[in-house]
């Protein structure tokens, strides 16, 4: 046994001298990705976790014990007890619920409408998908122009007069919701279309012969069959809406008039006031919340698949 092992090692060594073995080559190919992944994903993840338990600002030089200085869970305690923070949580929740609900209802509705065959269906589908293909920052800036209270098209088209959609804090959350729904409804629509086209036609035909009502076909055939893929769209959209940043940044900017969204606040804390450690703790709380929401949805998704 041992002699055979030696023999094998010997032949391996020989192969190594002649050319690289498959495994070496494989590792060589993976290495760049691994280095990048560790340096810009994994390391920051753990470093920010560490920072969230300290008092630290990235603006000043690192002096161990002073900057960063260990302060335990003080940052987290502050996040969870500060009434200002709760306003941000609630605003974000409102934003997520409104935009995701709007996207789901409209997206699924459009998909249902696009199911019936009519002339120019392909063209209209392509047009409807366009918003999704644009860069969010550009979309944000474009909607800012659109919402402009004095000469913007939005007020003009709806005949609303000079309503301020950008800096009025009672309203600008809704303007971002509208832009978000405009941009991401096509995403839900696309997924729904895929789901709908997978529903076997003969189920509808059987229902037709059984004298089933429109409502029955919708609730008993369509919905159960597309439910898993709708759930998937819901998961994607909720996660995205939760951490929305580029759209509000484009529409309202990060100023005092911007709606109190978590991600905006995180940006202000970390990169305007440079309270890096407090920002990290907000980031971690957001991460935990997103993970919790996703887990709940995934549980439902798995149930639906059974």
């Amino acid at each position: 046994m041992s002699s055979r092992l030696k023999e094998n090692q010997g032949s391996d060594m020989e192969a190594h001298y002649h050319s690289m073995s498959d495994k070496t080559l494989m590792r060589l190919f993976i290495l760049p990705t691994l280095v990048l992944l560790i340096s810009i994903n994994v390391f920051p993840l753990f470093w920010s976790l560490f920072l969230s338990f300290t008092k630290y600002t990235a603006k000043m030089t690192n002096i161990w014990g002073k900057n960063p200085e260990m302060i335990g869970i003080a940052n987290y305690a502050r996040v969870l007890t500060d009434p200002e923070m709760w306003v941000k949580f609630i605003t974000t929740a409102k934003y997520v619920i409104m935009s995701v609900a709007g996207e789901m209802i409209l997206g699924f509705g459009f998909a249902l409408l696009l199911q019936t065959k009519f002339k120019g269906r392909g063209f209209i589908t392509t047009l409807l998908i366009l918003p999704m293909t644009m860069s969010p920052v550009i979309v944000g800036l474009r909607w800012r122009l659109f919402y402009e209270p004095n000469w913007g098209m939005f007020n003009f088209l709806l005949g609303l007069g000079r309503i301020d959609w950008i800096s009025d804090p009672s309203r600008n959350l809704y303007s971002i919701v509208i832009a978000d729904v405009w941009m991401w409804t096509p995403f839900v629509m696309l997924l729904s279309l895929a789901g709908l086209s997978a529903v076997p036609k003969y189920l509808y035909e059987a229902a037709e012969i059984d004298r089933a009502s429109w409502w029955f076909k919708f609730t008993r055939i369509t919905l159960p069959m597309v439910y898993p893929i709708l759930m998937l769209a819901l998961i994607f959209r909720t996660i995205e809406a939760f951490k929305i940043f580029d759209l509000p940044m484009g529409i309202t900017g990060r100023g005092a008039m911007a709606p109190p969204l978590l991600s905006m606040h995180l940006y202000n804390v970390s990169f305007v006031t440079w309270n890096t450690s407090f920002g990290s703790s907000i980031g971690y709380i957001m991460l935990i919340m997103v993970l919790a929401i996703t887990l709940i949805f995934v549980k439902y998704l798995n149930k639906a698949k059974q």
Partner: protein
Amino acid sequence: MAGVKLISLTKTFGDVTAVNDMNIEIKDKEFFVLLGPTGAGKTTTLRLVAGLEKQDKGEVFLDNISVNDFTPALRDVAFVFQYYTLYPHYTVRQNLEFPLKSKLRSFTKSEIKKKVSEVSRILHIEHLLERETVNLSGGEMQRVALGRAMVRTPKVFLMDEPLSNLDAKLREEMRRELSRLHFDLGSTFFYVTHDQVEAMTMGDRIAVLNEGRMLQIGTPDEIYNSPKNVFVAKFVGSPAINLFKSAIEKDTLIIGKKEMVLGIFEKHRNVLKKYNKKNIILGIRPEDIEISREKQKVNSFKCAVYFSQSMGAEDILNLKIDNINFRAIAPPKYMIKLGETVYANINISRSHLFDSETEECIA
């Protein structure tokens, strides 16, 4: 219960004529089978009867009433699909109850319950009633689908290859059950299949279709023993019929370069007079070729066993005379081996003769 009448029914999809001038009259309480290869227009015909497609021309009568303008719901037919069309997230009982709950039928709760238990008893699915349909096996699902068709005693049962997704053993079992069901219910069955065994075993009458055209209507016996043309002869029967191009000279049929010379059956002589010196197609079913080790008096030919398939109850022999190949059925007791030389004795009285141009049967 009702008969079905199709009058010059035609349906095209783009350039393809799926159903071409179809005329069928199905009697009340008949088990009628539409048989044909894939793309013959069988399913389209059935869908036209159900109203799931709209015909370009022609008329559909159910129970002597023209139903051309009726929606599928109003035609009062039941359709059993090739795939198990059960409603998801419904139990078996809910699936069976569903067609009865329509507002167009006013059944009381106890009536519905009675009907469901009656149907489930006939189909042996009583023990499955409270189960969700996703957990059922293929055979069970198809039985539930059948049950859903049965509960509302429709005018006609339309079945589109309902057994083709089942495995061989279950298919055979369901064949028996369907025949029995037809007998018990006494309703009209309009059944589509590409499987000639299903057609032969279950049908009261069979219509053979190809490329949208109806080629022959008849009882299984008529279809098998007097096929009207080459297609029907080839399509029905397994192993398939042997077809020989043969020339007629006086009272003999010559196959190939006189490798086989057969005396014409007396009753065929008159019909074949006008084909003298011409070619025809001779069809002989494999079971009409008898195998022997010694040469017999008439129409006996020496041939080599090229290949043999044992089916248990019989052996299918592929035989060869120079360049002529054909098949015969032999009892396994002969223990015939590959490469062996045997004599094929052709029963000329059971031969089928076809015109070589029109491929229609001449005798």
